[in-house]
Protein backbone atom coordinates (compact mmCIF):
# COMPACT_ATOMS: atom_id res chain seq x y z
CA UNK A 1 0.00 0.00 0.00
CA UNK A 2 1.05 3.55 -0.68
CA UNK A 3 1.63 6.34 1.73
CA UNK A 4 -1.20 7.08 4.12
CA UNK A 5 -3.23 10.12 3.21
CA UNK A 6 -3.55 11.96 6.46
CA UNK A 7 -7.02 13.25 7.19
CA UNK A 8 -6.72 16.93 8.23
CA UNK A 9 -9.08 16.32 11.17
CA UNK A 10 -6.88 13.50 12.34
CA UNK A 11 -3.73 15.61 12.09
CA UNK A 12 -5.42 18.43 14.02
CA UNK A 13 -6.63 16.07 16.75
CA UNK A 14 -3.24 14.49 17.18
CA UNK A 15 -1.64 17.87 17.50
CA UNK A 16 -4.09 18.70 20.30
CA UNK A 17 -6.11 21.31 18.40
CA UNK A 18 -9.04 22.01 20.70
CA UNK A 19 -11.10 23.98 18.16
CA UNK A 20 -10.85 21.04 15.76
CA UNK A 21 -12.10 18.71 18.50
CA UNK A 22 -15.06 21.00 19.23
CA UNK A 23 -15.90 21.10 15.55
CA UNK A 24 -15.80 17.30 15.36
CA UNK A 25 -18.16 17.06 18.32
CA UNK A 26 -20.60 19.41 16.62
CA UNK A 27 -20.54 17.42 13.41
CA UNK A 28 -20.65 13.90 14.79
CA UNK A 29 -22.17 13.87 18.27
CA UNK A 30 -25.83 13.91 17.16
CA UNK A 31 -25.27 11.15 14.64
CA UNK A 32 -23.33 9.09 17.15
CA UNK A 33 -26.20 9.47 19.59
CA UNK A 34 -28.74 8.22 17.03
CA UNK A 35 -26.43 5.33 16.26
CA UNK A 36 -26.12 4.42 19.95
CA UNK A 37 -29.92 4.62 20.20
CA UNK A 38 -30.15 1.96 17.52
CA UNK A 39 -28.76 -0.45 20.12
CA UNK A 40 -29.68 0.87 23.54
CA UNK A 41 -33.09 2.38 24.05
CA UNK A 42 -32.45 4.47 27.09
CA UNK A 43 -31.37 7.99 26.00
CA UNK A 44 -29.23 8.47 29.11
CA UNK A 45 -27.41 5.23 28.43
CA UNK A 46 -26.96 6.20 24.77
CA UNK A 47 -25.40 9.48 25.87
CA UNK A 48 -22.98 7.55 28.09
CA UNK A 49 -22.09 5.30 25.17
CA UNK A 50 -21.24 8.31 23.02
CA UNK A 51 -19.13 9.97 25.70
CA UNK A 52 -17.26 6.74 26.27
CA UNK A 53 -16.76 6.50 22.51
CA UNK A 54 -15.10 9.90 22.37
CA UNK A 55 -12.79 8.94 25.22
CA UNK A 56 -11.93 5.66 23.50
CA UNK A 57 -11.27 7.60 20.32
CA UNK A 58 -8.79 9.86 22.11
CA UNK A 59 -7.08 6.95 23.85
CA UNK A 60 -6.74 5.05 20.57
CA UNK A 61 -5.82 7.98 18.37
CA UNK A 62 -2.14 7.04 18.23
CA UNK A 63 -2.98 3.47 17.22
CA UNK A 64 -5.43 4.49 14.50
CA UNK A 65 -3.89 3.55 11.17
CA UNK A 66 -6.21 5.46 8.88
CA UNK A 67 -7.33 2.42 6.93
CA UNK A 68 -10.87 3.74 7.13
CA UNK A 69 -11.99 7.36 7.40
CA UNK A 70 -11.92 8.94 10.84
CA UNK A 71 -15.71 9.05 10.74
CA UNK A 72 -16.13 5.35 9.96
CA UNK A 73 -13.63 4.46 12.66
CA UNK A 74 -15.44 6.64 15.19
CA UNK A 75 -18.82 5.11 14.35
CA UNK A 76 -17.32 1.65 14.61
CA UNK A 77 -16.26 2.49 18.16
CA UNK A 78 -19.80 3.66 18.98
CA UNK A 79 -21.20 0.42 17.57
CA UNK A 80 -18.87 -1.77 19.61
CA UNK A 81 -19.52 0.01 22.87
CA UNK A 82 -23.28 0.23 22.26
CA UNK A 83 -23.46 -3.46 21.38
CA UNK A 84 -21.71 -4.53 24.55
CA UNK A 85 -23.99 -2.28 26.61
CA UNK A 86 -26.93 -3.82 24.83
CA UNK A 87 -25.80 -7.31 25.74
CA UNK A 88 -25.58 -6.22 29.35
CA UNK A 89 -29.04 -4.63 29.09
CA UNK A 90 -30.46 -7.71 27.37
CA UNK A 91 -29.85 -9.84 30.45
CA UNK A 92 -32.53 -7.95 32.28
CA UNK A 93 -35.05 -7.82 29.43
CA UNK A 94 -37.78 -10.41 29.02
CA UNK A 95 -37.05 -13.19 26.54
CA UNK A 96 -39.93 -12.30 24.24
CA UNK A 97 -38.30 -9.09 23.14
CA UNK A 98 -35.09 -10.93 22.23
CA UNK A 99 -36.70 -13.57 20.10
CA UNK A 100 -38.81 -11.30 18.00
CA UNK A 101 -38.86 -12.49 14.41
CA UNK A 102 -36.52 -10.58 12.14
CA UNK A 103 -37.22 -10.79 8.42
CA UNK A 104 -34.76 -8.04 7.52
CA UNK A 105 -33.01 -10.15 4.90
CA UNK A 106 -36.16 -11.35 3.19
CA UNK A 107 -37.16 -10.02 -0.20
CA UNK A 108 -40.86 -10.05 0.55
CA UNK A 109 -42.69 -7.15 -1.13
CA UNK A 110 -42.53 -3.93 0.84
CA UNK A 111 -45.62 -2.34 -0.68
CA UNK A 112 -49.09 -3.65 0.09
CA UNK A 113 -50.30 -5.91 -2.79
CA UNK A 114 -53.69 -4.19 -2.68
CA UNK A 115 -52.14 -1.04 -4.07
CA UNK A 116 -51.66 -2.76 -7.42
CA UNK A 117 -54.06 -4.17 -9.98
CA UNK A 118 -53.90 -7.69 -11.40
CA UNK A 119 -51.51 -6.39 -14.06
CA UNK A 120 -49.01 -5.27 -11.42
CA UNK A 121 -49.60 -1.56 -12.14
CA UNK A 122 -50.70 0.96 -9.50
CA UNK A 123 -54.40 0.90 -8.76
CA UNK A 124 -53.99 3.30 -5.86
CA UNK A 125 -50.84 5.27 -6.63
CA UNK A 126 -48.96 7.36 -4.05
CA UNK A 127 -49.56 11.10 -3.68
CA UNK A 128 -47.09 13.90 -3.32
CA UNK A 129 -46.38 15.00 0.24
CA UNK A 130 -46.73 18.53 1.64
CA UNK A 131 -43.14 19.71 2.27
CA UNK A 132 -44.06 21.88 5.28
CA UNK A 133 -45.68 19.04 7.19
CA UNK A 134 -42.99 16.61 6.10
CA UNK A 135 -40.31 18.55 7.95
CA UNK A 136 -42.35 19.45 11.04
CA UNK A 137 -41.09 18.46 14.46
CA UNK A 138 -44.12 16.23 14.97
CA UNK A 139 -43.21 14.30 11.82
CA UNK A 140 -39.63 13.94 13.05
CA UNK A 141 -40.84 12.44 16.33
CA UNK A 142 -42.88 9.91 14.40
CA UNK A 143 -39.95 9.04 12.15
CA UNK A 144 -37.79 8.53 15.22
CA UNK A 145 -40.41 6.20 16.70
CA UNK A 146 -40.78 4.33 13.40
CA UNK A 147 -37.04 3.68 13.28
CA UNK A 148 -37.01 2.54 16.89
CA UNK A 149 -39.69 -0.02 16.11
CA UNK A 150 -37.75 -1.58 13.21
CA UNK A 151 -35.95 -4.88 13.66
CA UNK A 152 -32.35 -4.38 14.76
CA UNK A 153 -30.73 -5.28 11.45
CA UNK A 154 -32.75 -2.66 9.60
CA UNK A 155 -32.40 -0.10 12.33
CA UNK A 156 -28.62 -0.19 12.25
CA UNK A 157 -28.41 0.04 8.47
CA UNK A 158 -30.84 2.93 8.09
CA UNK A 159 -29.14 4.77 10.95
CA UNK A 160 -25.68 4.34 9.47
CA UNK A 161 -26.75 5.20 5.93
CA UNK A 162 -29.45 7.83 6.26
CA UNK A 163 -28.81 9.39 9.67
CA UNK A 164 -25.02 9.17 9.84
CA UNK A 165 -24.59 9.47 6.08
CA UNK A 166 -22.03 6.70 5.62
CA UNK A 167 -21.41 5.16 2.19
CA UNK A 168 -22.82 1.73 1.39
CA UNK A 169 -19.33 0.20 1.31
CA UNK A 170 -18.47 1.64 4.73
CA UNK A 171 -21.65 0.17 6.20
CA UNK A 172 -20.91 -3.24 4.72
CA UNK A 173 -17.46 -3.11 6.30
CA UNK A 174 -18.69 -2.02 9.72
CA UNK A 175 -21.44 -4.64 9.88
CA UNK A 176 -19.58 -7.38 7.97
CA UNK A 177 -22.48 -7.90 5.59
CA UNK A 178 -22.65 -8.23 1.81
CA UNK A 179 -23.55 -5.32 -0.44
CA UNK A 180 -26.77 -7.09 -1.29
CA UNK A 181 -27.82 -7.63 2.32
CA UNK A 182 -27.02 -4.03 3.05
CA UNK A 183 -29.34 -2.87 0.28
CA UNK A 184 -32.15 -5.28 1.16
CA UNK A 185 -32.12 -4.14 4.78
CA UNK A 186 -31.95 -0.49 3.83
CA UNK A 187 -34.80 -0.94 1.37
CA UNK A 188 -37.04 -2.63 3.93
CA UNK A 189 -36.23 0.01 6.52
CA UNK A 190 -36.93 2.95 4.22
CA UNK A 191 -40.10 1.31 2.93
CA UNK A 192 -41.41 0.90 6.50
CA UNK A 193 -40.71 4.50 7.38
CA UNK A 194 -42.26 5.60 4.08
CA UNK A 195 -45.39 3.59 4.83
CA UNK A 196 -45.74 5.24 8.22
CA UNK A 197 -45.24 8.69 6.66
CA UNK A 198 -47.84 7.99 4.02
CA UNK A 199 -50.38 7.11 6.70
CA UNK A 200 -49.50 10.13 8.76
CA UNK A 201 -49.36 12.69 5.94
CA UNK A 202 -52.55 11.56 4.30
Amino acid at each position, binding site marked *: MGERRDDPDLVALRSGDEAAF*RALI*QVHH*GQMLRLAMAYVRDPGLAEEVVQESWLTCLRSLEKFEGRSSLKTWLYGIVMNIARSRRRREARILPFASLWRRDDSDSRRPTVDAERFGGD*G*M*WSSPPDSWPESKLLSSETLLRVKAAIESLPMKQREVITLRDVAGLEASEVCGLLSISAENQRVRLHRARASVRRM*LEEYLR
Partner: protein
Amino acid sequence: MTCRQVVELMTDYLDGALAAEDRARFEAHMAGCDGCQAYLAQMKATRKVVGKLAEASVPRTVEDELVKAFRDWKGKSA
Protein backbone atom coordinates in the same frame (compact mmCIF):
# COMPACT_ATOMS: atom_id res chain seq x y z
CA MET B 1 -41.48 -4.20 -15.77
CA THR B 2 -44.56 -3.67 -13.61
CA CYS B 3 -44.97 -0.99 -10.94
CA ARG B 4 -44.97 -3.74 -8.36
CA GLN B 5 -41.51 -4.82 -9.48
CA VAL B 6 -40.19 -1.30 -9.94
CA VAL B 7 -40.94 -0.19 -6.37
CA GLU B 8 -38.78 -3.02 -5.03
CA LEU B 9 -35.81 -1.83 -7.10
CA MET B 10 -35.83 1.77 -5.87
CA THR B 11 -33.05 1.39 -3.32
CA ASP B 12 -30.87 -0.55 -5.74
CA TYR B 13 -31.47 2.22 -8.25
CA LEU B 14 -30.64 5.01 -5.80
CA ASP B 15 -27.44 3.19 -4.82
CA GLY B 16 -26.42 2.75 -8.44
CA ALA B 17 -26.50 -1.01 -7.98
CA LEU B 18 -28.69 -2.01 -10.91
CA ALA B 19 -27.04 -3.78 -13.85
CA ALA B 20 -27.04 -1.66 -17.00
CA GLU B 21 -29.86 -3.58 -18.62
CA ASP B 22 -32.12 -3.50 -15.54
CA ARG B 23 -31.40 0.13 -15.09
CA ALA B 24 -32.47 0.90 -18.66
CA ARG B 25 -35.73 -0.99 -18.14
CA PHE B 26 -36.26 0.71 -14.80
CA GLU B 27 -35.74 4.15 -16.31
CA ALA B 28 -37.96 3.38 -19.28
CA HIS B 29 -40.76 2.43 -16.89
CA MET B 30 -40.22 5.48 -14.70
CA ALA B 31 -40.35 7.84 -17.67
CA GLY B 32 -43.95 6.89 -18.36
CA CYS B 33 -45.27 6.25 -14.86
CA ASP B 34 -46.50 9.03 -12.59
CA GLY B 35 -47.24 6.61 -9.76
CA CYS B 36 -43.68 5.26 -9.65
CA GLN B 37 -42.24 8.76 -9.95
CA ALA B 38 -44.34 9.75 -6.94
CA TYR B 39 -43.14 6.66 -5.07
CA LEU B 40 -39.50 7.45 -5.82
CA ALA B 41 -40.07 11.02 -4.64
CA GLN B 42 -41.53 9.64 -1.38
CA MET B 43 -38.52 7.35 -0.88
CA LYS B 44 -36.17 10.30 -1.38
CA ALA B 45 -38.27 12.44 0.97
CA THR B 46 -38.14 9.63 3.54
CA ARG B 47 -34.35 9.53 3.30
CA LYS B 48 -34.23 13.30 3.74
CA VAL B 49 -36.45 13.34 6.85
CA VAL B 50 -34.51 10.47 8.42
CA GLY B 51 -31.34 12.52 7.82
CA LYS B 52 -32.81 15.34 9.92
CA LEU B 53 -32.73 13.17 13.03
CA ALA B 54 -29.03 13.79 13.54
CA GLU B 55 -29.37 17.55 13.65
CA ALA B 56 -29.98 17.94 17.39
CA SER B 57 -27.46 20.41 18.80
CA VAL B 58 -24.95 19.24 21.36
CA PRO B 59 -25.62 20.59 24.87
CA ARG B 60 -22.88 22.98 25.95
CA THR B 61 -22.26 21.01 29.15
CA VAL B 62 -21.64 17.83 27.18
CA GLU B 63 -19.24 19.59 24.86
CA ASP B 64 -17.38 21.22 27.75
CA GLU B 65 -17.02 17.92 29.53
CA LEU B 66 -15.58 16.30 26.43
CA VAL B 67 -13.20 19.18 25.87
CA LYS B 68 -12.02 18.76 29.44
CA ALA B 69 -11.27 15.13 28.69
CA PHE B 70 -9.46 16.27 25.56
CA ARG B 71 -7.22 18.56 27.61
CA ASP B 72 -6.46 15.74 30.04
CA TRP B 73 -5.57 13.50 27.15
CA LYS B 74 -3.38 16.18 25.61
CA GLY B 75 -1.65 16.70 28.94
CA LYS B 76 -0.89 13.01 29.23
CA SER B 77 0.32 12.52 25.69
CA ALA B 78 2.45 15.65 25.61
